[in-house]
């Protein structure tokens, strides 16, 4: 058995005749994801200089693989496959080079209907659950399920629970939710089966913005607890343009 994700040779899987999925593993694991992001970075670098990559349309990182969508019309899918394989074997792991975010989170009762359930399950107090969440520096594994929805990991063992047996018909926008080893945020109201622990006033998806999705795979994120009044204040400031979503990005630490 390979002990390090580095030893798992990348697999090139065809997703029809218009995408390759380059797979580095089968688990949700930071070191596998680091290889996904490593290939993504290498691909972005060659994309603009090597004409073979001109056919690439979309590059989608996931937990454990990078899906590269391409234009099938030139008929160069096999050449792209070989080029991706070489890149994947040479690219290694990327350090978490994305942006660092610190987003406000309000844990008021009506925002956090599942906090007690999760606390009971983990044998923790409500405060301890919130503290455990605040202590996490999350990695953004990928954006999916709906536009702007981030899959954040990993949760500490005490906060892990299977998703709700019966999904809710409508989860309110901005809800911070957990299931298994993951935390997520619903960018807008939607049905959902994850446990709701709080809410953020910062919209994760704004269609009119230059970058509609606030977060990107490879970013990191921490939650900062705020009171209900601070939550409302941030929401109003963002609505009125007194603050922008970028204000919650943190300066890179200098080494």
């Amino acid at each position, binding site marked *: 058995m390979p002990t390090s994700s580095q030893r798992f040779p990348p697999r090139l899987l065809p*997703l029809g*005749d*218009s995408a390759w999925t380059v797979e580095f593993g089968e688990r949700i694991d930071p070191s596998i994801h680091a290889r996904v992001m490593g290939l993504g970075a290498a691909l972005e670098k060659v994309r603009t200089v090597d004409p073979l990559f001109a056919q690439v*349309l*979309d590059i*989608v990182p996931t937990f454990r693989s*990078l899906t590269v969508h391409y234009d099938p019309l030139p*008929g160069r899918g096999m050449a792209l496959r070989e080029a991706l394989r070489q890149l994947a074997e040479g690219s290694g792991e990327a350090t978490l080079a994305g942006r660092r975010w610190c987003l406000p989170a309000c844990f008021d009762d009506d925002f956090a209907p599942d906090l007690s359930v999760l606390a009971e399950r983990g044998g923790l107090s409500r405060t301890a659950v919130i503290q455990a969440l605040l202590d996490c520096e999350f990695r953004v594994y990928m954006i999916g399920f709906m536009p702007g929805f981030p899959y954040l990991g990993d949760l500490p063992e005490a906060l892990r629970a299977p998703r709700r047996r019966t999904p809710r018909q409508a989860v309110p926008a901005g809800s911070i939710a957990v299931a298994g080893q993951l935390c997520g945020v619903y960018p807008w109201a939607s049905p959902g089966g994850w446990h709701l622990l709080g809410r953020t006033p910062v919209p994760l998806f704004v269609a009119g913005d230059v970058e509609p999705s606030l977060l990107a795979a490879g970013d990191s994120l921490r939650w900062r607890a705020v009171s209900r009044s601070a939550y409302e204040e941030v929401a109003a400031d963002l609505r009125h343009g007194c603050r922008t979503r970028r204000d919650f990005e943190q300066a890179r630490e200098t080494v």
Partner: protein
Amino acid sequence: MIATIEVIEGGHGNSIQDRGRVGYRHMGIAVSGQLDAIFARCANALVGNAESAACLEMRATGPTLKVRAGALRVAMSGEVAATIQRPDGRQRRLAAWCSASLDNGDVLKIGAIAGGTAYLAVSGGIGVVPQLGSRSTYLRAAIGGCDGRLLAAGDSFPCRRLERDDLGEYRATPWRHDGGPIRAISGPQTDCFGLTALADFLAQPYTVSVESDRMGMRLAGPALAHRDADSADIVSDGVAPGAIQVPGDGQPIVLLADCQTVGGYPKIATVITADLCRLGQCRPGATIRFALVDLATAAALLAAREARWQHWRESIRGHLPLDYVDENALYRSNLIGGVLRAEP
């Protein structure tokens, strides 16, 4: 010069679509776009538009449209027909696969869609403001088209006004999609399935379920067995339109243009690009079979399809409309100039 069309009745299942929204899938934004890109291209070609022009995709009942500022040209593709009502009470039928010019006050009432998908193209394309590089309606994120939703009464959109001497109409024989099984490439998760699953998948026809929309098409037929219970769920990876995912009940779902960007069900095979447009014509109750091809065959089929389409486009012929003749303009028109004038 701008012409304007107003929506009198929205019909059902009608949305503005172009070739789709490329470059945003890493943000979880579906590619969207026309389900049957070939039919859409045909309609666009019949009004002289580029392939990139946005048109109206119709899936159930067509809308009723009124020209507020004309003139403009329209054409439909697919199994659909319409009536044109002139302000003076004259009425005529408009068949698919031929264009018609409409002027101020003309009402175009489009009927039910018999096939899976039909298109209405208007001269210059439907000029709604693009969002994230595309005019395609994406319902889930409420972007593109008319406020990101289906067409509704009261909507209006601009298109290109015709020049006064632009009188000819255009027609062609209906485009015919390839027949036979829908072709797919196996994978990416064939190893999640039992030994016979792929053979089972190819052996029997599947029926398109009523639970189908622009995101995906549920199929009913022989259940496909996963390798074991754990293999019915995978750690989510990338998906694309055409991907055939198989949840725990073994009944396949073919993803379509508005599908999510990632998914957690294993995918047994993925429909090739050349055949995606054929999925757009599958109505609930239709039966489809699948066949596997390799990547080289998929590329050859796509190239052949493109060549056939070029040929179809060249087969478009101009003709004179049977009604709505402006004689003065006719004499000025280049279209029939050669016919009326004795060549030296």
